[in-house]
């Protein structure tokens, strides 16, 4: 009758981070590229899929690096790098079925990548040319959310809609639909996120909570958000939680796919903690030297998500140096394309700031727009007259 929380999860595969504490998580690929096969998460992927993962990771990293550089060159106001989190995002993104709908944070460039959003559309927000960038319905992907945790409630509501549409548990793989709700370790402290857990649990919603634990909320380490592993939060709300090696694309893929399947079958929510590391700054405005413990970055570099896949591809002869060179070339081309796309993002017209405040006419917006138009043209007249 009493539930004494122990700070340790059940036994399982381990990795030892710098703290020396053993971490239990689902792992399919060790940092050395060795393949593991935990019984709960059977995964058979063909060579093309494996190579696809590799390509995703490399191109995504290049996109991210390029965007960071673009910020340095003044082309973007800000960038939130995902360096180190590629496997977590690609693993989750590739697990989605086309009809699934995902709610990203503002660092989810891997998800936009998987969902076919054009890099320029992603950069528009960070360039200050847009507050969004794409049509969510086209990509089944909501816009980046900036107010931490708010999108997790939207995901719960969206999942309520799926239920009401009868798109859960029909057995029809093209119809059954799940929602992927992404957020960070810091977000788990927000009221909204916990309220979303309540809704998901009570209504048994087809939603997968995908938490990328990148060890930090800006400067604050995990311990400021929870004293036990985050995946255990779910048990307090009555649904399963699982921790996965977030630097292992195969494991993330397998675990997320499994959870999405459960959701689509009508078996309710799952919480996934993808245990990973933000190797870069929080954003380009951040200075991690102020708070990052020495040696930590180096430790995590040993666990790089791309390196282990390279090892595995070599080991299994699924990829060779020629293939890697091919992808590298593709990455270079992507870099060029991203740079050009970024520079050619048009500035919005000033008057467009009055568009889409409402769907239907609103007298105050209309009055302000009219005033602005007259005011603008007074300059033009003045300019023309000069």
């Amino acid at each position, binding site marked *: 009758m009493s539930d004494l929380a122990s700070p340790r999860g059940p036994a399982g595969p381990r990795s030892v981070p710098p703290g020396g504490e053993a971490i239990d998580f689902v792992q399919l690929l060790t940092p050395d590229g060795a393949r593991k096969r935990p019984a709960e998460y059977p995964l058979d992927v063909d060579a093309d899929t494996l190579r696809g993962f590799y390509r995703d990771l490399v191109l995504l990293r290049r996109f991210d690096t390029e965007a960071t550089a673009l910020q340095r060159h003044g082309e973007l106001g800000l960038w939130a790098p995902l360096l180190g989190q590629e496997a977590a995002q690609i693993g989750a993104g590739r697990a989605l079925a086309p009809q699934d709908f995902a709610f990203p944070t503002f660092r989810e460039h891997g998800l936009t990548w998987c969902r076919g959003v054009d890099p320029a559309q992603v950069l528009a927000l960070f360039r200050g040319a*847009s*507050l*969004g960038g*794409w*049509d*969510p*319905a086209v990509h089944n992907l*909501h*816009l980046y959310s900036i*107010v931490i945790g*708010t999108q*997790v*409630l*939207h*995901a*719960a*509501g*969206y*999942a*309520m*809609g*799926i*239920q*009401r*549409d009868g798109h859960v548990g029909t057995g029809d793989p093209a119809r059954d639909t799940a929602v992927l709700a992404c957020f960070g370790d810091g977000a788990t402290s927000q*009221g*909204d996120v916990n*309220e*979303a857990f*309540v*809704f998901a649990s*009570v209504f048994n919603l087809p939603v997968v909570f995908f938490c990328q634990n990148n060890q930090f909320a800006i400067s604050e380490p995990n311990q400021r958000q929870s004293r036990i592993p985050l995946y255990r939060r779910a048990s307090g709300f009555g649904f399963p939680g699982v921790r996965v090696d977030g630097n292992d694309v195969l494991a993330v893929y397998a675990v997320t796919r499994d959870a999405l399947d459960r959701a689509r079958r009508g078996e309710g929510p799952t919480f996934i903690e993808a245990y990973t590391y933000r190797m870069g700054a929080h954003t380009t405005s951040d200075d991690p030297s102020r708070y990052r413990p020495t040696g930590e970055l180096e430790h995590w570099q040993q666990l790089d998500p791309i390196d282990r896949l390279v090892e595995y591809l070599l080991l299994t002869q699924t990829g060779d140096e020629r293939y890697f060179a091919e992808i590298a070339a593709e990455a270079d081309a992507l870099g060029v394309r991203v740079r050009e796309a970024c520079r050619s993002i048009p500035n919005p017209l000033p008057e467009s700031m009055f*568009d*889409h*405040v*409402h*769907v*239907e*006419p*609103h*007298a*105050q*917006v209309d009055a302000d727009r009219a005033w602005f138009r007259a005011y603008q043209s007074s300059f033009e007249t003045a300019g023309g007259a000069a």
Partner: protein
Amino acid sequence: MSGPGDHQVADSIEPADVQTLTMARALNAGLRRAMESDPTVLVMGEDVGALGGVFRVTDGLAKDFGDERVIDTPLAESGIVGAAIGLAMRGYRPVCEIQFDGFIYPAFDQLVSQLAKMHYRTAGAVRVPVVVRVPYGGGIGAVEHHSESPEAYFAHTAGLRVVTCATPQDAHWMIQQAIASDDPVMFFEPKRRYWDKGSVDLRAASAPLDRARVVRSGERLTIAAYGPMVRTALDAATVAEHEGISIEVVDLRSLSPLDVPTLVASVERTRRLVVVHEAQTFLGMGAEIAARITEACFYQLEAPVLRVGGFHTPYPASRVEEDYLPDVDRVLEAADRVLAY
């Protein structure tokens, strides 16, 4: 051009009928019609199901439309509004009930940063036709947090429509118009008028959702009021008439947008304006109206626009609320003052 939200309503006209209903029943009937005519309309909130809401505005809906469409939610206002946004993204039209005015603040972030800004953020790609119903205002002898008037917070927020009804007729139609609107609408219901009866014409609305209405014509001054204070303003006008003073009363109905032309037209004739509301005067709707009408009618106004509103205190214990709330006497005192210029 039709006003916002009223274009879908005309279709579902019932056989010609006029009924006498309380405001609560008029709302209930309005919700029912909206749910009947559009299967995407949902009702959600705390105790809206079996209980029918603490004011019984959703009475019987759960029974008739089932708990997939009338949803008793967990006790979490941010959750209610946040989930409604998600439902709207999936194509539904949720009508959220916030149990009392004072319990809307936990949802504030979802309202002002999400609901208000989603259409804008998505450059028009996403519509969030969510209606948030809020029983508001004082005068019912309630404990703290059950008598507040938070409408100015929302009217200051771009991206939200804010409306409030003063009669059963408007309640019945405005709720349908609000639901039909593709924009988010904050729908404020004057809770102390829930039990007031009035005739409801089931055939047609009185006005578009964003229009004010002159509810009494007069000559010497205009009183602008809304929600619970419309009756107070009308009562004051009646008393004043006995004293030979002819007062025009405008029911604002929409607080965002504000129907400035109707106000200007009235003030251009009467040349004097008093604004009445329960909310704190400081930065209440009266401030905006005074600023705007003074600018529009600077040479017509014989007196400054005067405001009768809540004092700059939290809503006090109910045993003194009659002293706190604007009443006929305070409205007349302001009328006297404005006429003395």
